[in-house]
């Protein structure tokens, strides 16, 4: 069986951020299963990441003031 690659602090951060490939994610998950203290810390930060993704979402649906659309009229066709 192939030796499992080391899991670095950057890997854990990318895991928290959801920026890992499926393969690498599986390796990090396996690592965390055997490191429960680290797993709890990572899980807390993953929950935080999930909440952060929802922050300010109401601002994306409010109407944009008309001054912005006026500025876009300066674009040349």
């Amino acid at each position, binding site marked *: 069986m192939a030796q499992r690659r080391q899991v670095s602090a*950057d890997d854990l951060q990318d895991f928290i951020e959801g920026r890992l490939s499926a393969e690498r994610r599986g390796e990090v998950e396996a690592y965390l299963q055997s490191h429960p203290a680290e797993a709890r810390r990572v899980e807390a930060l993953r929950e935080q*990441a999930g909440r952060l993704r929802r922050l300010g*979402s*109401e*601002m994306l649906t409010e109407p944009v003031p008309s001054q912005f659309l006026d500025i876009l009229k*300066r674009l*040349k066709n």
Partner: protein
Amino acid sequence: MAGEEKSDEPTPVGVHDALVAELPHLRRFAYYLTRGSERADDIAQETLARAVKHIGRLRPDSNLRAWLFTIAHNVARNEARRQRRSPVDPHTDLADLQPAQAQSQDSAIELREMHEAVLRLPPAFRQTLFLCAIEGLSYEDAAEVMAVPIGTVRSRLARARLALERDLAGSGSKGKAAEAGKE
């Protein structure tokens, strides 16, 4: 404030509609940059005016959102220099800010607390957290927006997450995040 100049180049096909679609994201970035100051929309409009003027500099392969954010970052920084004060407005009344609506009461409170804690972060942490964790930009794009190396984005992001976690764990006592890391 926003200059009246026309574009320097013809507008590439589709760019007008793409810009319209980016406006809410640009306004939200300006909001977080200024901690919800009333200057947020001025900065967003000045950013858009510069983008329109220099639309010919937009490369076909570049990320439009990151390009706009790069301009906004510079506009906000220049404005802060001109006014000889930090882009953080210490007089912003956090109680006036409206955090995200959520389905359950519990998560609405949680989101509100998080929103306020993010606004308490030092500017570099707040901006990094916004770009990477809220907008989901790549580290490369976030590095370009803030004109810092990718390693700096990574380290700021990790420290911002810990500062936020500490602030939220500290049962809402204000100002902890700000103490956690001035750069």
